[in-house]
């Protein structure tokens, strides 16, 4: 994990909402590099891709074939590109002692700055992640030269404890990446976009921390993904997006660090979080 001091000034984050293809890693990688190039033209400091962006989401047992180690040569072009902007990607990570994690990897300056392993693996309804992945062992921020980020992968954010715990770590922002499927109802956008709006808005407002959210779009194996990537400020106002649900797109979000710090000063909600109430409740339940 990087130790460099966070930069000052605005933070420009590009949300690269791509339609990944399961098992087509070279194609997916090309899409990454194309999006990074566009993001650089837009002046982005950080480019954020969806969950399992390198491999595709519905790999199922294909993770056995497509899981990567962090030193896999396939990642070299991304590491090279990370010399010009930090890049957060999702991939199935082959662990040294066995098992495969659903991981978010932050690359910067040609190096791996940090890894978050998905904590909550949904295994219900259409989801079967617990069958293919092992859960992450810990929740801690990832730091690079741009700042300190709370990285969450999809279902992690549906457990509000994740953001409450991370909010104690002096974050600059949350980065939430997702491969969120959706159904359609009477709404003008896929139903998942509505749910993400409420969840991410609640995360931002209750932790007084900006949230950058990149979801994937498109179809895999007959499953529709809901897009609607979005950036929201610490008071719940939209910075960029939401992106169109059905199309690949690149959203560029400019965050004023000064404004974010001012919001935290005026509304210090996370500082008052009484985590001892949580531990007391947990102890009582386990007694």
């Amino acid at each position, binding site marked *: 994990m990087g130790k460099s001091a966070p930069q000052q000034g605005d933070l420009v984050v590009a949300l690269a909402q791509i339609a990944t293809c399961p*098992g*087509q890693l070279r194609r997916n990688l090309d899409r990454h590099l194309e999006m990074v190039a566009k993001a650089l033209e837009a002046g982005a400091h950080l480019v954020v891709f969806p969950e399992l962006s390198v491999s595709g989401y519905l*790999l*199922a*047992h294909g993770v056995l074939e497509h899981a990567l180690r962090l030193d896999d040569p396939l990642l070299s072009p991304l590491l090279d590109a990370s010399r010009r902007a930090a890049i957060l990607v999702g991939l199935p990570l082959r662990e040294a002692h066995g098992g495969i994690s659903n991981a978010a990897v932050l690359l910067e300056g040609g190096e791996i700055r940090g890894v978050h392993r998905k904590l909550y693996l949904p295994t219900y309804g259409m989801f079967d992640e617990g069958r293919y992945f092992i859960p992450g062992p810990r929740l801690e921020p990832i730091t690079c030269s741009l700042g300190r980020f709370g990285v969450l992968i999809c279902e992690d954010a549906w457990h509000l404890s994740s953001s409450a715990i991370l909010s104690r770590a002096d974050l600059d922002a949350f980065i939430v990446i997702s491969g969120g499927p959706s159904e359609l109802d009477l709404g*003008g956008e896929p139903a998942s976009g509505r749910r993400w709006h409420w969840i991410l808005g609640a995360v931002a407002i209750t932790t007084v921390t900006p949230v950058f959210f990149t979801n994937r779009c*498109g*179809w*895999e194996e007959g499953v529709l993904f809901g897009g609607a990537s979005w950036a929201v400020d610490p008071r719940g106002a939209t910075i960029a997006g939401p992106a169109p649900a059905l199309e690949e797109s690149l959203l560029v979000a400019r965050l004023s660090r000064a404004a974010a710090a001012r919001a935290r000063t005026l509304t210090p909600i996370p500082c008052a979080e009484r985590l001892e109430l949580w531990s007391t409740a947990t102890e009582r339940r386990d007694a």
Partner: protein
Amino acid sequence: MLELPPVNVQLLARALEVFLVEELRASGLAGYLVGLSGGVDSAVSAALAAAAVGPEKVRALALPGATSSLESLRDAQAVAKAFGLALDVVDLASPAEILAETLGARADRVRFGNMMARLRMVALFDRARPVPALVLGTSNKSEILLGYSTLFGDAAASVQPLGDVWKTHIFALARTLGVPDSIVAKPPTADLWPGQTDAGELGFDYPTVDPVLYWHHEGGLGRDELVASGSSPALVDSALAAYRRNRFKWRPTVVARVSASCINVDRILPRNPER
């Protein structure tokens, strides 16, 4: 009274078009081939495909048999014209008679009807090969849940864009996509013998049964709760009987697992990996 939740039909159409674009790209093939029956399902499938990948990449076949109505062929031609599709007519009457005679199936209208549905499947997959094209399915969720289809016949396709869409919503899709009114308005029929209609065979029409199926299949209501919600006992019993009786069609075949690497059980893999 139970109701089927509405859906945003414009968004549904756009989403299914993106699906058809992606499936064609992932397959690496040149286009779609659709069998036009003259009914609303195949009209909607064809319209979606034409909008998705362009009418020049969608070919249509009309496959009449000896018992098909002339109206069906006219409606198939109307659909092809409406969406700019090249339509070939392949008359299956003669080969159907020969095969039925050979098999001894002519006197049984269900056997003959199933045979016709499977002959159409043979024609579609054969004509798809030289293009090469994906065979565009036309099955809808209501008929799949009820099992009202011929296994390896009309249920056979490369992709099924409407397989999770209620028939009630397909009528709405048809109106949105510009399917000719006469096709949307006529009673659904498999057209396997003169005078056949879906409602005549099933005992109910789709707008009536769709809410029952939805609230059972997705909403989790049991038989007594469905009746207590205002649906007639006869309708509920009839619909649920078909829902149970024909469930084997949802998975057309089952493989005997005798290893730790059984395909689609122990090894579920993406269909289109990098080549």
